[in-house]
């Protein structure tokens, strides 16, 4: 179990995240929704360890392997296959595993293409493959399908379900699509202006949100989608 206590993160004097207490149970799937600037990326970065909290503690990650897909992953200027193999350096079956995961995300035909010459959606799928090629205890994904088309999104969601099933990892992801959160997550967290407004089982939250702010967000989303 991962536990955040009294976590506060500030940038330039502005509080961007303030979480009094938050728990992520092992082997569960959590989807974070919220508008831009709600703190989703900040929270994922803290969990990934790429930034340290200004104050507060994060417990339960010691000794655990954490995989993280940032919102703007870097596409290295070598081949797609080599980009994926990067995560498996020293592994005896690196090539075979990389080829297998590229098939899973529908990228096998681009295995020899240069990573930095891919389209936005392709680069995102390659980056996801690079993370999914290894097994982690905790998998953090920051908007994993924000640039992909509907067909690729279905494939990625299916791949993610299989990955979680196989590895029994704790999945925490952010998305701008409440529908995706509903499809992939056991529990959904709604964040607004750096604060956790509501957390609960996915279906329950979407059908009967408790907080007025969650209701307003979901209503707005259903109108605009």
């Amino acid at each position: 179990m991962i536990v955040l206590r009294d976590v506060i993160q500030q940038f330039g004097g502005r509080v961007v995240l303030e979480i009094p207490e938050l728990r992520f149970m092992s082997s569960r799937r959590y989807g974070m929704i919220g508008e831009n600037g709600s703190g989703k990326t900040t929270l994922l970065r803290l969990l990934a360890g790429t930034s340290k909290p200004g104050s507060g503690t994060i417990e339960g990650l010691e000794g655990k392997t954490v995989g993280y897909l940032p919102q703007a992953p870097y596409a290295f200027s070598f081949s797609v296959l080599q980009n994926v193999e990067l995560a498996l350096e020293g592994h005896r079956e690196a090539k075979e595993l990389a080829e297998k995961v590229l098939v899973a995300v529908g990228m096998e035909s681009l295995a020899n293409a240069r990573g930095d010459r891919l389209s936005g959606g392709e680069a995102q799928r390659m980056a996801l493959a690079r993370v999914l090629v290894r097994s982690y205890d905790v998998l953090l994904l920051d908007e994993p399908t924000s640039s992909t088309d509907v067909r690729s999104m279905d494939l990625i969601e299916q791949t993610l379900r299989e990955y979680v099933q196989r590895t029994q990892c704790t999945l925490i992801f952010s998305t701008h699509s409440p529908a995706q959160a509903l499809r992939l997550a056991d529990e959904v967290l709604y964040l607004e202006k750096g604060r956790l407004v509501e957390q609960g089982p996915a279906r329950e939250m979407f059908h009967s949100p408790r907080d007025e702010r969650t209701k307003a967000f979901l209503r707005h989303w259903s109108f605009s989608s």
Partner: protein
Amino acid sequence: MIKQVLELLFGADPELRQIIGVTLRMSVFSTLISALIGIPWGVAMGANQFKGKAILSRITNTLMGLPPVVAGLIVFMVLSRSGPLGKLSLLYSVSAMVIAQVVLISPIIAGMTANVVSLRAPSINETCAGIGIFGWKRLWLTIKECRIPFVTTVLAGFGRSIAEVGAVQMVGGNIQFKTRVMTTAIMMQTNMGRFELAVALGVVLLIISFIINSLVHRIQEQTQRDRTA
């Protein structure tokens, strides 16, 4: 005068050839040494967050705009007989000119390198952290991804080196057949009213400058094409 200039350019004038030779030797050596200092300095600044980075960045930016005569003065004082390195007797030699050039160009290469690296490093660092790559391996990947812009920074350093006059005049002394380079020769010949040699050297400088700029432009175009393809 054009005829005389062409005769100098395509003839076998020993002084002209010697001046061009000294200029290229000085510029190539000073650029290589500056790259060896400036690139690691710039990578360290651009790829990492550390205490004192802001002040180091400010110092580097200040040194990037260091007036050549000030660099010349510092090197002159250090190498002069009463200076800390006076015993080496390097003053008025090509080595002294190379040292002055290194003082001038290293911060320029460092600053440009830091800019190039800092554009890519945040994304590379975050991506690498996400798949468990840290330390030297991450740094090596960052350097590898910046290799083409690094060539541009080194070429810019060479361009600055070959066009420099103030510092090399002070520590080199513009000695005929020893430390006279194209820029100091142009200045002296102009002052003496001997425009043929000055123009011939100016043409050579312009041609070299054009070649360097063309190379930089080509590299930048190629990089742009790779990014948008």
